[in-house]
């Protein structure tokens, strides 16, 4: 294999269509006779439904149908549990999943009550105002601690204390470690993570072809295969009768992996019932209520340390807001629990969490998927420990890093993929060194900061470490096929939302088959093109689907060599594949184009040997034995205005190890975007609920996504520790940028304002100018 493309900063195959306005997104699907849907949603968080009167809406000109839960009949059912709880001893898990249209009771603002289908979206929205709903409000469950009290209202009948789950995991013996500690530091930490807010909201189009008995669905999903299988089952169809296409999807970041949103259940059903295509596109206001969030956790954590700063143990007890339903199981809080351990040796760990139902939208993974919460706790504990023990912040981290000879490193607890939390490979100290060097850490603290302080400026530095479990199973597959025109077609089951799959998979395949990257056509997210797969989540596309592409391309390469050897009557070893053709080494003129060979592989007459498969084609699957653990360090220099608490990030550095790099340009983009979302989470974005469970800032004018003015220039460097768990040696990179930004901001702002010396700690995220003003009130 001549590696030419793997590792190169190749520009993307998919860009031309996107740049010219010719990429198909779900809302671009226009079909004759299409109906448009609008959903009537609850405007209170918790209420008994007394009545829903849709007669006036049904009578409106242009309205074709209006449905409530009753109309769904036996089709009405709570959704499936997507991720069962991992096999952890004594786990309590109370499954309560979302329903297509609310019946009897509503449990969060935005929960759908009825759907209107009309000749235009404008008419459908008009008709929503015709529907008369009587709701008897109940007290809303909003605050996590109050939710546990006996006196609290309950989101679900039969779930006392609103406990959705209770899980304890431990290693070693924390109590004994604590007894031998020189120092124990205990604090409460609050970490709130917001809405992923892709610029494209969700949407779905469904078309029933009665003649063919075939249902086609275009959906903004990250998991088209899983969606097809589920919706086929619900509708009583065979999987083969349903084609799900996730075309270009305008950002996902997690919530689009959630299944089955009520709209995803109702729209296909309505399309069949009415025998007309139906489109529903979420508007931005709906998106804030109808698409899943991530949200808050409250951690009561303590760290036991030796006098030299070595961690003897950590204990953490936390509450997790799971929202009104828990279809995604325990993925988010398990990630928090596991990722807290970070790149550090923590020999004794005792972690317990309680997931709580609240009258708020559902919580499912959003880029980082709970990892941020855990990283915030350990990084803050280390900052406080460094301050109390008078050890440099970078140094205390260095002293606790897992040494390079300790891999694979088993943390002895269970991860989200149900496997033991084992780090496959890593070398953490060079990452820290590189980040400190790039940010100029020593010089900043010794020279720059005193000089700037002398000028009355408040400038601080921060450094934060993290690991990220990526590339988990179960599996993905790919079909690689040489076409008669010499191009190579690759189909895989995962969906794509901007990650560059059309390019990185093409790079992998192009190297195996000796063709140009631009001559490899990738199809993702079309269940008629590739039948099997799990989906795009957990930073796993490049690892799992990428390796499947590689395996399939290797098999095709073997077929090419075998057939060409027969054609030239030579040994396979004498052949070379390059520039789209196979040639006999050292014999000028003895060459055949791959397209011509593909035609030969599919003879139209004559006989073939028994066992011959047609075409230059192979389908292969890849499933890793465990996840690959990426790691990194972020460092930042920030200036804080002590009057307004506005920030200016003067320098931002990311050093990252995600194993071997397929495309450094695309990788940089992933990191930039992750950091930008991390910055939003750290300082700008917060979903604000009042005591009635009303979301108070459900617009992009009030929920502040960072703009080009808030996101700084970033300097990025990589170290490479290949994963031993896959042949390409890659690890995932999608979420890493977003994970350590919260603790980095808290630390750097504290440092800029000298807060720890004044006994002010920033133990919560998000911060904001207003919140910093409040937290520093006692200094004024």
């Amino acid at each position, binding site marked *: 294999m001549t590696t030419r493309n793997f590792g190169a900063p190749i520009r993307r195959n*998919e860009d031309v269509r996107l740049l010219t*306005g010719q990429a198909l997104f779900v809302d671009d699907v226009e079909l004759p006779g299409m109906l448009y849907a609008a959903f009537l949603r609850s405007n209170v968080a918790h209420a008994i439904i007394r009545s829903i009167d849709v007669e006036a809406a049904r009578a409106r000109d242009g309205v074709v149908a209006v449905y409530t839960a009753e109309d769904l009949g036996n089709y009405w059912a709570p959704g499936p549990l997507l991720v069962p709880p991992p096999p952890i001893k004594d786990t309590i898990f109370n499954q309560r999943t979302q329903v297509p249209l609310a019946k009897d009771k509503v449990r969060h603002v935005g929960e759908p009550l009825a759907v209107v289908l009309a000749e235009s979206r404008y008419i459908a929205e*008009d008709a929503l105002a015709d529907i008369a709903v009587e709701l008897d409000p109940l007290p809303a469950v909003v605050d996590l601690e109050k939710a546990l009290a006996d006196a609290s209202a309950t989101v679900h009948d039969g779930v006392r204390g609103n406990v959705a789950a209770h899980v304890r995991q431990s290693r070693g013996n924390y109590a004994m470690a604590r007894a031998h500690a020189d120092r124990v530091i205990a604090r409460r930490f609050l970490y709130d993570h917001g809405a992923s807010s892709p*610029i494209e909201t969700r949407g779905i189009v469904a078309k029933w072809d009665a003649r063919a008995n075939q249902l086609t669905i275009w959906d903004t999903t990250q998991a088209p295969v899983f969606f097809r299988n589920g919706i086929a089952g619900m509708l009583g169809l065979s999987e083969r009768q349903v084609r799900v296409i996730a075309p270009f999807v*305008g950002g996902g970041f997690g919530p689009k992996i959630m299944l089955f949103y009520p709209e995803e259940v109702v729209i296909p059903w309505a399309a069949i019932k009415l025998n007309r295509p139906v489109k529903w596109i979420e508007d931005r206001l709906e998106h804030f209520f109808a698409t899943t969030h991530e949200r808050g956790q409250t951690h009561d954590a303590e760290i036991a340390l030796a006098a030299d700063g070595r961690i003897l143990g950590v204990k953490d007890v936390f509450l997790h807001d799971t929202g009104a339903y828990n279809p995604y199981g325990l993925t988010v809080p398990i990630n928090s629990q596991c990722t807290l351990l970070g790149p550090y040796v923590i020999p004794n760990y005792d972690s317990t969490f309680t997931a709580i139902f609240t009258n708020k939208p559902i919580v499912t993974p959003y880029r980082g998927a709970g990892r941020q919460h855990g990283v915030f706790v350990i990084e803050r504990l280390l900052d406080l420990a460094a301050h109390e023990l008078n050890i440099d912040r970078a140094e205390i981290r260095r002293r606790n890093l897992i040494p390079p000879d300790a891999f694979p490193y088993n943390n002895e607890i269970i991860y989200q993929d149900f496997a033991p939390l084992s780090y496959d490979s890593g070398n953490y100290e060079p990452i820290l060194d590189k980040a400190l060097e790039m940010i100029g850490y020593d010089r900043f603290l010794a020279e720059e900061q005193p000089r700037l302080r002398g000028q009355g400026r408040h400038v601080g530095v921060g450094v934060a470490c993290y690991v990220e479990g990526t590339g988990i199973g179960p599996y993905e597959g790919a079909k690689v096929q040489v076409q008669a025109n010499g191009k190579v077609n690759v189909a895989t089951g995962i969906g794509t939302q901007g990650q560059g799959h059309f390019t990185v998979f093409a790079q992998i395949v192009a190297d195996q088959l000796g063709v140009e990257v631009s001559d490899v056509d990738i199809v993702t997210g079309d269940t008629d093109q590739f039948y099997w797969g799990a989906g795009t989540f957990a930073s796993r596309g490049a690892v799992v689907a990428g390796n499947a592409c590689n395996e399939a391309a290797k098999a095709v390469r073997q077929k090419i060599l075998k057939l060409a050897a027969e054609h030239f009557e030579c040994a396979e070893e004498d052949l070379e594949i390059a520039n789209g053709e196979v040639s006999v080494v050292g014999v000028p003129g003895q060459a055949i184009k791959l397209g011509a060979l593909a035609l030969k592989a599919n003879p139209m007459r004559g006989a073939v040997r028994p066992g011959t498969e047609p075409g230059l084609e192979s389908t292969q699957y890849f499933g890793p034995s465990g996840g690959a653990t990426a790691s990194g360090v972020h460092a930042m220099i920030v200036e804080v205005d002590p009057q307004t608490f506005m920030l200016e990030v003067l320098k931002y550095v990311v050093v990252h190890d995600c194993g071997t790099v397929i495309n450094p340009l695309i990788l940089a*983009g992933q990191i*930039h975007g992750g950091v*930008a979302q991390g910055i939003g989470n750290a300082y700008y974005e917060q979903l604000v609920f009042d005591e009635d469970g009303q979301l108070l800032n459900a617009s992009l004018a009030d929920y502040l996504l960072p*703009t080009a003015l808030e996101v700084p220039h970033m300097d990025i460097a990589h170290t490479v520790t290949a994963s031993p768990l896959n042949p390409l040696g890659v690890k995932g990179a999608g979420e890493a940028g977003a994970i350590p930004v919260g603790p980095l901001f808290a630390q750097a702002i504290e440092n800029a304002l000298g807060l720890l010396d004044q006994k002010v700690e920033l133990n919560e995220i998000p911060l904001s100018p207003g919140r910093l003003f409040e937290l520093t009130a006692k200094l004024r």
Partner: protein
Amino acid sequence: MSTDSHEINVTVNGTACRRTVESRLLLSDFLRHDLLLAGTHVGCEHGVCGACTVIFDGAAVRSCLMFAAQADGHAIMTVEGLAADREHLHPLQESMRDCHGLQCGYCTPGILMTMKVFLDETPSPDEAQIREALSGNLCRCTGYQHIVEAMQLAAQRLRG
């Protein structure tokens, strides 16, 4: 239902169109669903995200904040009008591709429209000016850095 309608004459990407539209029809919906120019994307419908930006008589405007009827007698350029064909991208598009200035690509048409007007008016911008000009367009994927680099490259190419 509002049934009042207007006949409008509008030039889109150099082509004159005559259509009858309802008063309340948004310009963004008119472009996307009536003219089938779906390259103009809708992200928020309240004028914040900038995805629906088009060039209206030479100015970058948000088509979700205008009615189609207001376009009567005016000239509009959408992303579909930027390149002659896929083989001949505009320097803005080429630079976005070279610098990996897009990921999911959903905000991209609005950014191209905003920055076309900006670079026409500011042919030699510095980074701060580019960031200021970009700040009305939200991108959730890229962190903006590659877009800023793309605009620097595009400015250079457009200056020739």
